[in-house]
C-alpha cells in the first residue's frame, strides 16, 4: 500500500489541476460572454462599468430584507460589495464576481451573514487585499471558489465563524504573450484569522498561496480536514490557545504546519508529505509550543519530519515518521514525552542538541539494534541519539555537505563524549506501533494499480536485459576459448 500513495496523491494533484483549469476556462468564457453586452451599454470607461455592475449586485443586497435569503441569478458581476446586514446570500450555479478595485470583493460587516457558492476572482494585486473580508461574528462561508492575486478569506475580530468547503487558489495573471506576469509578486494567505475566537475551518482546499491557513492571536479554533498544496506554510499558527488541528493534509509546501507560540493545542491525524524543496522545509514545526498533544500524525518525505525547538511539556505519540531526510530534530526542547512513534526509512532518524529531560520510550526506530530478551516486544538496549553532526554544523554550516557521507557515519560512531546526556529512548519497541493502513486512509485518492503493474514489468525487462548482457559478456569473453 505504501508504494501506491505518492502516485495516488499525484493523480489527485493532476485532477485538482485539471479542475482548476476547467474552472478557469469557465470563468474566462463567462467573462467573455458577459462583458460585451455590458460594454455596449456602458460609456466605455471601465471604472464606470465596474461601479455600474457592482451597483447592481450591491443594490440586490441593499434591497433585501434583513434575515432573508438572496439567491443570485447566474451571470458575472464585478466590483466590490459590502454586506452590512444579516443575510443569506446563495449563488446559483455559475455566479462569478470579479473585482479589480483595491477594496475586498466581498466585505461582511454584519453578524450572522451566510455566503454560499460564489466564485470570486480578486484581480487587484496586493497581499493585504482579501477576496472576502469578515469583520463580524457568526459568519458562514461555504463552497466559495476564490482565485486571488491578494489574500483569500480574511477574518478580523470575527468570532464563531464557519468556513467550510471553500477553495482558495492563486490567480495566475497572464500578459498578452501568455507568460505569467505575477509569478514573483508577494502572495497573500489563503485563510487568514486575526483575533477571532471559536471559528471552525473545515474541508477547505488551498493551493499556491503564501500561508494556507494563517491563525494569529485567537483561541478555541477547529481546523479540520483541510488540504493545502504548494504554499509557503500549510498551517501557520501564532499565539493560539486551546485549538484543534485535526486531519489536515499538506503537500509540497515549504513547511506543512508551522506551530508557534501555541499552548494546549491538539494536533492529530494530520498528514504532511513531501515538504522537502526548501532548505528550511519541515513537515511539522513546533516552536515555543507548550502543553500540547501531537498524536497520530503522518509525516513522509520531508526534509525534517518533526522539528521541535524551545518547546516543553508536550506529548508526541503514535506519529508515523517515514522516509524523511531527518526524522525528528530537537533543539532546546525540554520535558517532552515522545512515545509509541514509528521512525522508518529516514536518512537520519533523529537529531537532538541541548534537549534535556525529554522522556523517550517505546518508539520504533527501524535502524536501531534492538535486543528483546524476555519476548515482550520491547528492546532491552536503549537507543541513543548521537548529537555529533548537529553540533558540528551548528558552528560551521558549510559542513552540511558531509550529510550522511560514509566517513561522517564513521566519525560520529567514534564520538561518544557525554553519552549519558544524549537524548535516549530507554526502551525502544521492536515492532511498528501504528498500522500503516490507518494513516494511509487519510490521504485518499484513486489507486492507479494498472500503472504500477506495467512499471514493474518494465523494470523486469530492464533488469533481465542487464543480467543477460552481463552474463553473455562474461561467457563470451571469459569462458569460451577463441
Amino acid at each position, binding site marked *: 500500500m505504501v508504494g501506491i500513495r505518492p502516485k495516488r496523491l499525484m493523480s489527485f494533484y493532476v485532477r485538482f489541476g485539471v479542475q482548476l483549469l476547467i474552472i478557469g476556462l469557465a470563468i474566462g468564457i463567462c467573462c467573455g460572454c458577459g462583458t460585451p453586452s455590458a460594454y455596449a451599454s456602458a460609456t466605455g470607461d471601465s471604472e464606470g462599468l465596474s461601479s455600474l455592475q457592482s451597483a447592481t449586485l450591491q443594490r440586490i443586497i441593499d434591497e433585501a430584507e434583513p434575515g432573508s435569503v438572496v439567491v443570485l441569478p447566474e451571470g458575472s458581476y464585478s466590483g466590490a460589495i459590502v454586506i452590512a446586514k444579516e443575510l443569506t446570500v446563495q449563488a446559483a450555479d455559475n455566479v462569478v464576481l470579479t473585482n479589480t478595485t483595491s477594496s475586498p470583493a466581498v466585505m461582511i460587516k454584519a453578524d450572522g451573514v451566510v455566503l454560499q457558492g460564489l466564485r470570486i476572482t480578486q484581480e487587484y494585486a496586493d497581499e493585504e487585499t482579501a477576496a472576502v473580508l469578515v469583520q463580524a461574528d457568526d459568519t458562514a462561508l461555504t463552497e466559495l471558489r476564490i482565485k486571488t492575486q491578494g489574500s483569500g478569506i480574511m477574518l478580523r475580530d470575527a468570532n464563531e465563524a464557519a468556513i467550510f468547503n471553500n477553495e482558495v487558489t492563486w490567480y495566475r495573471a497572464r500578459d498578452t504573450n501568455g507568460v505569467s506576469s505575477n509569478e514573483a509578486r508577494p502572495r497573500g494567505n489563503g485563510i487568514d484569522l486575526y483575533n477571532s475566537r471559536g471559528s471552525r475551518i473545515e474541508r477547505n482546499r488551498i493551493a499556491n498561496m503564501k500561508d494556507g491557513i494563517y491563525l494569529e492571536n485567537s483561541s478555541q479554533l477547529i481546523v479540520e480536514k483541510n488540504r493545502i498544496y504548494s504554499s509557503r506554510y500549510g498551517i501557520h499558527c501564532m499565539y493560539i490557545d486551546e485549538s484543534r488541528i485535526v486531519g489536515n493534509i499538506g503537500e509540497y509546501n515549504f513547511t506543512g504546519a508551522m506551530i508557534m507560540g501555541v499552548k494546549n493545542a491538539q494536533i492529530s491525524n494530520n498528514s504532511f508529505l513531501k515538504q522537502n524543496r526548501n*532548505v528550511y522545509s519541515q513537515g511539522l514545526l513546533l516552536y515555543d509550543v507548550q502543553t500540547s498533544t501531537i498524536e497520530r500524525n503522518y509525516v513522509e518525505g520531508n526534509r525534517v519530519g518533526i522539528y521541535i525547538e524551545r518547546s516543553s511539556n508536550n506529548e508526541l505519540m503514535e506519529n508515523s515518521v517515514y522516509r524523511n531526510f531527518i526524522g525528528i530534530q530537537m533543539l532546546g526542547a525540554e520535558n517532552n514525552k515522545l512515545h509509541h512513534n514509528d521512525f522508518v526509512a529516514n536518512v537520519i532518524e533523529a537529531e537532538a542538541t541541548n534537549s534535556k529531560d525529554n522522556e523517550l520510550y517505546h518508539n520504533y526506530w527501524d535502524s536501531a539494534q534492538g535486543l528483546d530478551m524476555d519476548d515482550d516486544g520491547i528492546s532491552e538496549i536503549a537507543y541513543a541519539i548521537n548529537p555529533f553532526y548537529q553540533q558540528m554544523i551548528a558552528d560551521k554550516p558549510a559542513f552540511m555537505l558531509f550529510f550522511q557521507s560514509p566517513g561522517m557515519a564513521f566519525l560520529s560512531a567514534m564520538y561518544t563524549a557525554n553519552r549519558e546526556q544524549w537524548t535516549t529512548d530507554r526502551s525502544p519497541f521492536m515492532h511498528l506501533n501504528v498500522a500503516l493502513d490507518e494513516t494511509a486512509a487519510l490521504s485518499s485518492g484513486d489507486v492507479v494499480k494498472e500503472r504500477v503493474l506495467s512499471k514493474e514489468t518494465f523494470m523486469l525487462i530492464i533488469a533481465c536485459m542487464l543480467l543477460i548482457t552481463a552474463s553473455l559478456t562474461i561467457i563470451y569473453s*571469459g569462458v569460451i576459448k577463441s
Partner: protein
Amino acid sequence: MTDLLQIAKREIKIGFRNPWSYSFLVLFSVFSLCLLLINSRNEVSGYSGVTGSMLSLILYLLPLMALFLGSFSLTAEKEEGSWQLLSTYPLGTLPFLVGKFAGLSIVLLTIVTFGYGLMGFIAVLLGITFELNTYLLFLAFSCGLVLLFLSVALFVGSLSRNRWQALTISVMLWFFLVIGWPAILIAVLGVLPYLWIKPLLTLLTLLNPAELVRLFVVIKLGGGSVLGPEYYRWVSWIREPGGSLAFVLVFITWIAGSIACVYWIWERRRSRG
C-alpha cells in the same frame, strides 16, 4: 586504433579470467541483495534511509573494487614482464593505456551491470517497489563512480612497482577518499579562517570522485535541501538538466586529466627506464 582494440580485447580476456573479478561480483551482488531484503518492507524511491544505505554500500565497495582491479592490472604488466615484451613492438604508450582503460572499464561495468540486473530481477520477483528512475540513477552513477576510480587506479598502478605497493596505496587512497575524508577536512578546515571554508570545501569536493558522485546522486534523488542554505543555489542549479551536463563535463575532464597524468608518468618511465 587497432593497437588500442587489441590491448582492450586482451584486457577483457584477462579481466574475466581473473578470480578477483568474480569475488567482487559475488561480494557486490550479495551485499546489494542483502540491503534490498533488509529493507524489503519499504519502497525504494527518492532520498530515504533505504537509498541512503545503498549509496553508502556503493561508496564503500565500488571504489575499492575499481582501485584493486585497475592498479593490479597495470603492475602485473610490469611484474610479469609483458610490458617489456610489448615495448619491443611498435606500440604507442597512449593506445596501450587507453586500451587498458577501455578493457578494464568493460570488465568493471559488466560486474556492476550484473549486480544491478540481479538486484532488479529479485526486487520484482519479491514484489519490492523499486522506482525505475531511482534504479537507473543508481546504475548510471555506480558506473560513473567505477570509471572515475578506475582512472585513479591507473594512476596508482603507474606509480607502484609491484602488486604489494599497489595494494597498499589503493587501500590508503580508498580510506582517505571514502572514510577519512570528512574527518581530515573538518580538522584541517577548522583551523582556517571561517570564510575560506566553503570555497575550499567546494574545490576539494571536486577533487574527490567519491564525494562528487555521492552529492550528485543525493541532489538528483531530491535530497538537495538537506545540504542546507549554504549550497542552495548550487543545488537548484544541479537539479536542472544543465547540472547533469556540467556533471558529465566534470566527469570527462576528470578521466581525461588523470589518463593524461598516467600517460606522462608512463612515458617518462619508458624513456628513462
